[in-house]
C-alpha cells in the first residue's frame, strides 16, 4: 500500500488562492486594507486616539473600581505631592541640583523631603486633588468639546457649502460673503468676548466655538459639490426628474463624505486647542471642572517648584491633538485613492 503511493508520481497541487492573487486585480476592499496597514502614521494616530477615547469613556468605571481617585476630592494635607519619577530621578541632591541649579538658594528642607505618596501616581495639585484622575477626566472634557463643536460647525458648514456649490450664482455669492466675514473675525478675541457676555461655562464654549469653526467645512464642501454637480450620474438623476433635495442627499452627499471626515478631524483638533487656550486664560471651562487648559492655568504659579504640574496636561493635549492630526492625515491618504 505504502509502496504503491511512494511509487506513484507526486500529485499536482494547485494553490488556488495564490494563483488567483496573481491573476486577479485585488478587490477595492483588499486595496483599502493594504493601504491602511502600510500607513504607519495612520495606525499610530488611530491607536493613540482609541486609547484616549477608551480612557475617557471608562473613567467613571475606573473610579468605581477604585483604580483612580475622585478628581474633585481635596486633601490639603497632601498638597503638591511629587509624581513617581521624582523620587528616582530627583531624589538625590546632585541630580536635583543639576536639573534646576537656579533654585540653589531655596533651603534644603523645602525640596529635600521626598513628598511622594504611592497612591497618587502622578502627584497631587495645589489643593491635594489626584493629578492622574484629573488628567483622565480632563480627556472627557476635551473630547466632548471637540466632538460637539465639530457636530455643530460641521452641520452649519456642510449645509452652507453644499447649497452654495450646488446652486451657484447668487446663493454662492452670499455664502462666499459669509465665509469671508467669518474669516475676518478674530475667533479667539470674539470667543473671549462672547464668554464674557454670556458667562463662562462649558456649554457657552461649545456653542461659541461650534458657531465659529464652520468656515473650513463650507470652503471644502463648496468646491467638492461644484465638481460633483456636473458628474454624469447627477445629470442623469436630474433628467429622470428627481427632486433637488433627493439629488443633494443621495447623489452629491456620498461624494463629500470622505473630505467631510478629514476636515472634521482638523477642526476637532482646532476646537480642542482653542478650548484649552480659552480655559488657560480663564475665559473657558470654570473650576473645579478638570479641563487640561484650566489645569495649566492653575499650575502656572507653581512653575518654579513643580514644573511637572505644567508639563503633564500640556503633554496630554499635545498627544491628543497629534493623534487626531495623524489620524486625519492618514484618513485622507487612505480614502482618497491617489499617489503621493
Amino acid at each position, binding site marked *: 500500500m505504502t509502496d504503491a503511493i511512494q511509487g506513484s508520481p507526486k500529485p499536482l497541487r494547485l494553490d488556488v488562492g495564490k494563483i488567483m492573487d496573481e491573476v486577479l486585480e485585488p478587490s477595492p476592499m483588499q486595496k483599502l486594507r493594504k493601504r491602511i496597514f502600510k500607513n504607519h*502614521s495612520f495606525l499610530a494616530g488611530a491607536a493613540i486616539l482609541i486609547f484616549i477615547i477608551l480612557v475617557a469613556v471608562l473613567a467613571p468605571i475606573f473610579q468605581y473600581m477604585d483604580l483612580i481617585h475622585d478628581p474633585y476630592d481635596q486633601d490639603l494635607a497632601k498638597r503638591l505631592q511629587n509624581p513617581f519619577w521624582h523620587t528616582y530621578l530627583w531624589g538625590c541632591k546632585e541630580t536635583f541640583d543639576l*536639573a*534646576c*541649579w*537656579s533654585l540653589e538658594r531655596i533651603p534644603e528642607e523645602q525640596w529635600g523631603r521626598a513628598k511622594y505618596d504611592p497612591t497618587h501616581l502622578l502627584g497631587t495639585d495645589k489643593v491635594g486633588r489626584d493629578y492622574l484622575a484629573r488628567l483622565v477626566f480632563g480627556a472627557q472634557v476635551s473630547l466632548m468639546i471637540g466632538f460637539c463643536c465639530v457636530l455643530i460647525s460641521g452641520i452649519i458648514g456642510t449645509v452652507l457649502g453644499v447649497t452654495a456649490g450646488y446652486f451657484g450664482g447668487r446663493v454662492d455669492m452670499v455664502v462666499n*460673503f459669509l465665509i*469671508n*466675514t467669518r*474669516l*475676518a*473675525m*478674530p*475667533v*479667539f*478675541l*470674539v470667543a*473671549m*468676548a*462672547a464668554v*464674557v*457676555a*454670556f*458667562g463662562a461655562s462649558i456649554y457657552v464654549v461649545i456653542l461659541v466655538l461650534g458657531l465659529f469653526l464652520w468656515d473650513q467645512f463650507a470652503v471644502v464642501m463648496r468646491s467638492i459639490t461644484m465638481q460633483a454637480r456636473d458628474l454624469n450620474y447627477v445629470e442623469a438623476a436630474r433628467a429622470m426628474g428627481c427632486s433637488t433635495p433627493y439629488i443633494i442627499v443621495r447623489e452629491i452627499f456620498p461624494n463629500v463624505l470622505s473630505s467631510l471626515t478629514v476636515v472634521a478631524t482638523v477642526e476637532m*483638533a482646532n476646537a480642542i*486647542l482653542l478650548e*484649552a*487656550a480659552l480655559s*488657560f*486664560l*480663564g*475665559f473657558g471651562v470654570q473650576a473645579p471642572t478638570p479641563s487640561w487648559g484650566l489645569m*495649566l492655568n492653575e499650575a*502656572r504659579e507653581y*512653575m*518654579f517648584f513643580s*514644573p511637572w504640574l*505644567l*508639563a503633564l*496636561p*500640556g503633554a496630554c*493635549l*499635545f*498627544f491628543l*491633538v*497629534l493623534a487626531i*492630526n*495623524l489620524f486625519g*492625515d492618514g484618513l485622507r491618504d487612505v480614502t482618497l485613492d491617489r499617489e503621493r
Partner: protein
Amino acid sequence: MLIYALKRTGVAFLILVVVSGLTFSLSHLSANPALTIAGEQASEADIQAVIKLYGFDRPIYVQYFDWLGRALSGDFGESYHYKAPVIEMISDRIGRTMLLGTLAILFALIISIPLGTLAAMRPNSLIDRFALLVAVFGQALPTFWFALMMMIVFGVWFRMLPVSGHTDWAHYVMPTIALGYYATPALMRLTRAGMIEVLASDYIRTARAKGLPPYIVLFKHALRNAIIPVVALAAVWFGFMLGGSIVIETIFNLKGIGWLSYDALLRSDLPVVQAIVLIFASFYVVLTLLADLLNAYLDPRISVK
C-alpha cells in the same frame, strides 16, 4: 481690472461693517455696560445717570451707527475703566504687537523656506521625513504650552532669557519663537509642494541643460517662482498671528494690544474690545485684499471670471 478692484474693495468694506456690527451687538446684548462703569455698589439713580450720559437707552442700531461714524474718523470713544481715549491706549501699544508679529512671521519664513526647499529637492529622503516630522509636531504643539515650557527651560532653569516684559530685544526672543513656529508647518508644506512642482517644470530642465550651476538654477529660477504663493500665505498668517498674540502677550506680559484686549475683557471694557476687534479684522481684510489684487494683477484671468 479696475472694476474688479473696486468690487473687491467694496466687499471688503462691507465685511468690516458686518464684523464690527456683530461684535458690537454681541458685547451689548448681555453685558450691562452701565453697571460696569458705575461699579458694583452704585445706586439705581447713579446707574440711570450713567445710562443717560452714555446713551445706552437708545436702540442698539442707533448706538452702533453712532459708534461706527466716530470710529471712521479715528475716535473709538473712551475706556470705561481707564477713562482714557481708546485710540491713545491702542497707539501706545500697537507697535509692540506689530514688531512681535513681524518677527514671528520672519522666524517662520526663515525656518520653513529652507526646510521646505531641502525637502522638495529630495522627496522621501531623510531630510524630507524630518521636515514632515517638524510639521506634524508643530501643528500639534499648543502654542501657550510651548511658551510655558520655554519659560521653564530657558527662563527658570538656565536663566538665559527674561520671562516677562518688553524693554529690550531679549524679551522678544521667546514670544517670537512661540508665535512663529505655529505658522511654520503651513508655510513649509506650501514651499515644499510649490518647489516640487517648479523643479519638475520645463524651464528648470532648460536651465539645467544650459549648464547653469545648480545653485543658480535653484535660487534664481526655482525658488523665485515657488516663493510667491508662500509670501501671499505669510501675509494672511500675519493676520491670524495678531489673534494668537493675545495668549502669547498675556503669558510673557508683553504689553501690546493682545495683552490690552485680555485686560479689557477682564474688566468688561467694551470700547477697547470693539476697537481691537475692528483693528484685527481690518488687518485681515486689507491683507487678503492686497493678496487678491496682487494675484489678479499677476494673473488677469481672475478678474474676468
